[in-house]
C-alpha cells in the first residue's frame, strides 16, 4: 500500500471522507462542522465535497444531536457525531448512556445503533477546566459502549474505519495535541481491530501501559531510560473497551513490572481497572514490584500553562516511576 506522511487530523478527515464516498448511509453531524470546518478544523473542506445534507451543521443542542444520531442509527443510517469538546458529553450523557448504550440490550437484542461519537479530549491548549478533560473512564464504565483512544495518525485512521464499520455505538476520543502529529499513513482505507493493543516499543524490564498522548510521553521516557540500561516496553491499548487484556498480561509476565499512565484524573481512572485486571490475572505471580498508576491530579485543569502541565503526568514523572519500580528485584 502506498503511504505518505499526514497528520492525525488529516487521517481522521481522510477516514471519514473515504467512508462517505463509498457508503451513502454515513453522514456527519455536529456544531460548526460546515464551512467553519469544526472547532479544530477536522471537517474542513468536507461540506464542499459532500454537501450540507451529509455534513450537517447543527444547533448547539448536544442532547438532541446525540439522540438524533442514535435515532438515525436505529433506523438504518451510520452517523458520525462530532462533539466540539469531549467535555460537552456531559450534555449528551443521557442519550449516550441511557439510550445508545442500552437500546439493544433493553430491546432483547433487537435493533442496533451503529454510530461513532468523535470528540477531542485532553489538556494542553490553555482552554482550562471546561474544555480540557479526559472523561473516557466514565464511558468505559457503561456496558454497551465501545471506547477508543488512538495515539497516532496511523492508528486513528484504521481505528476510525473500524469504528464506522462497527454496528455498536463507539466513543472515539481524539487528543487535541495529537491532531498536528504526523505518521506514515496508507492512502487506501484499512481497519485496525477494536480491542487490539499495540506494543509501541518492546522492552524487558518494565511494562508501561499508556493511553492517548501519554503513549508519546512514555516513548520519550523509554528512549531516555534505554541510556540508563533500563528496557521499557510501551503498550498502547488503543481501545479501552474492549480492552486487550492478553497483550498486557503477556507483557507483565515478561517484565514483572507494570506502570499505567493516563492523562485522566487518577482517581477512578482506567489505570485502576488495568492495574486490578493484572493483579487478578496469572501475571500477579510474575510481579516483582508494586503496580504504579500515574494519572491526572485531583483538580480541574487550570489555565496557567505551568499549572496545566503540573496537573497531568509528564515525562519526568514517568522516568521517576520507572526508576523506582526497577529498584525492586
Amino acid at each position, binding site marked *: 500500500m502506498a503511504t505518505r506522511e499526514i497528520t492525525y487530523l488529516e487521517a481522521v478527515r481522510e477516514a471519514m471522507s473515504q467512508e462517505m464516498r463509498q457508503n451513502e448511509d454515513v453522514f456527519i453531524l455536529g456544531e460548526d462542522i460546515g464551512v467553519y470546518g469544526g472547532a479544530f478544523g477536522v471537517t474542513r473542506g468536507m461540506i464542499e465535497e459532500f454537501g450540507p445534507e451529509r455534513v450537517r451543521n447543527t444547533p448547539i443542542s448536544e442532547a438532541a444531536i446525540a*439522540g438524533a*444520531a442514535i435515532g*438515525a442509527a436505529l433506523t438504518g443510517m451510520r452517523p458520525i457525531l462530532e462533539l466540539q469538546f469531549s467535555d460537552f458529553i456531559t450534555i449528551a450523557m443521557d442519550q449516550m448512556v441511557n439510550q445508545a448504550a442500552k437500546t439493544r440490550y433493553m430491546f432483547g437484542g433487537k435493533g442496533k445503533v451503529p454510530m461513532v461519537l468523535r470528540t477531542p479530549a485532553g489538556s494542553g491548549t490553555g482552554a482550562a477546566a471546561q474544555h480540557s478533560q479526559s472523561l473516557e473512564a466514565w464511558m468505559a464504565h457503561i456496558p454497551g459502549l465501545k471506547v477508543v483512544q488512538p495515539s497516532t495518525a496511523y492508528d486513528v485512521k484504521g481505528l476510525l474505519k473500524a469504528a464506522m464499520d462497527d454496528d455498536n455505538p463507539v466513543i472515539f476520543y481524539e487528543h487535541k495535541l495529537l491532531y498536528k502529529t504526523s505518521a506514515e499513513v496508507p492512502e487506501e482505507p484499512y481497519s485496525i481491530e477494536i480491542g487490539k493493543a499495540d506494543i509501541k516499543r518492546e522492552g524487558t524490564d518494565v511494562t508501561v501501559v499508556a493511553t492517548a498522548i501519554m503513549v508519546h510521553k512514555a516513548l520519550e521516557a523509554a528512549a531516555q531510560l534505554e541510556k540508563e540500561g533500563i528496557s521499557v516496553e510501551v503498550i498502547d491499548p488503543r481501545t479501552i473497551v474492549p480492552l486487550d487484556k492478553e497483550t498486557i498480561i503477556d507483557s507483565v509476565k515478561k517484565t514483572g513490572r507494570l506502570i499505567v499512565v493516563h492523562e485522566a484524573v487518577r482517581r477512578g481512572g482506567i489505570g485502576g481497572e488495568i492495574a486490578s485486571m493484572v493483579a487478578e490475572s496469572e501475571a500477579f505471580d510474575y510481579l516483582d514490584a508494586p503496580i504504579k498508576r500515574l494519572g491526572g491530579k485531583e483538580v480541574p485543569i487550570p489555565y496557567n500553562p505551568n499549572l496545566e502541565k503540573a496537573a497531568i503526568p509528564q515525562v519526568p514523572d514517568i522516568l521517576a516511576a520507572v526508576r523506582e519500580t526497577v529498584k525492586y528485584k
Partner: protein
Amino acid sequence: MMKTLKLPEMITEEKLKDLYKQMWTIRYFDEKVDQFFAKGLIHGTTHLCVGQEASAAGSIAVIGTKDKIVSTHRGHGHCIAKEGDVNKMMAELFGRVTGYCKGKGGSMHIADVEKGNLGANGIVGGGLPLAVGAALTSKMKKENYVVLCFFGDGASNEGSFHESVNLASIWDLPVVFICENNQYGMSGSVKEMTNIENIADRADAYGIPGKVVDGLDMVEIMNTVDEAVQRARNGFGPSLIEMKTYRWKGHSKSDAKKYRTREEENEWRAKDGIKRFKEFLKSEGVLNEEEAKQLQDAALAEIEEAVRFAENSPEPSIDSLLEDLYA
C-alpha cells in the same frame, strides 16, 4: 353508513370498529397489569394509560405500517395501537423469554422495531431526540415515513423537548410531536410546573404549528393528527399537538394520589374516551350495542389469552444474561 362527520380517508367503518376494540384491548391490558401488580404477580414497576386510550389509538390510526412511533414510559397503549402483540407484551411484563425484550426490558422498554415502534422509554423526554433521528433517516433515505413522537406534559419541561422540536423544525423533518398532557407528572400538576395555558403554545417558539385537541375525542384526534402527518409527509416539517387527557390510575404502582382530589378524578372518568367513541359510532350508525359488546368481549378474551401465554412461557435462562448487548 356514516352520516355526518368527516374523517381521514383511511378510517373506514371497519377501521372504526377495530379502533373501538383496540381501545378496550388497551384498557383491559392495563387493568389486568394493575391487578397483577396488586397481587404481587408482576415485579418492578409499570405506568398505566387507563383513561388515555384515545390519544394512542386515535393518533396511530392515521399512520401506516411503514410509519414509526416513539413511545414513553406510559407506552402500553402506543404499542398495542402500533400492531403490537399483546402476548409478547404481557410476557415481557412477566419477565419471560417470549416477551418483546426476552424479559430484559420490562414495561418501560417494550419496543417492536420491525413494526416501527422504536420503543417506550424510561427517561422522561429521552425519546424526543430519537424521533428526530428516525425522521432524519426518513428524509435522507427518502423513505417517506412519518414519526409520531409521544411524550408527556412533564417531558415538555425537559431540555430535550426544546432542542428536539427546534432541530426538527430547522430541518423540516417528518415528525409529529404529540404531547399527552395527562395533567400530572409523578405528582407535579402541569399548572404548577408550567406558566402557560397550553403546552402546544410552545410550538410558536420553534416556528411550527401547534394545536390543542380534546384528548378523549377520537374524531378530533384522528383529524388533527392526520393533518399534521400529511404536512410532515409532504415535506413541510413537524407539528406539535397537545392532547388534553387524564390518567385514571396513579403515576406508578406506589401512588396514593394525594396531589389530586377524588372529585377531579370522577369528573374525568365521566368523560371516558371509550364510552364517548361508542356513542359516536352508534350515532353514526357504525355500531349497535350488541356489536359493541361483542368487540369489548373479544378484547377481554385477547388479554386473557395473553395472560395465559405469559404465565405458560419460560423464564429466560441465566446463560442469556450477557447476550444481546453488542451487535
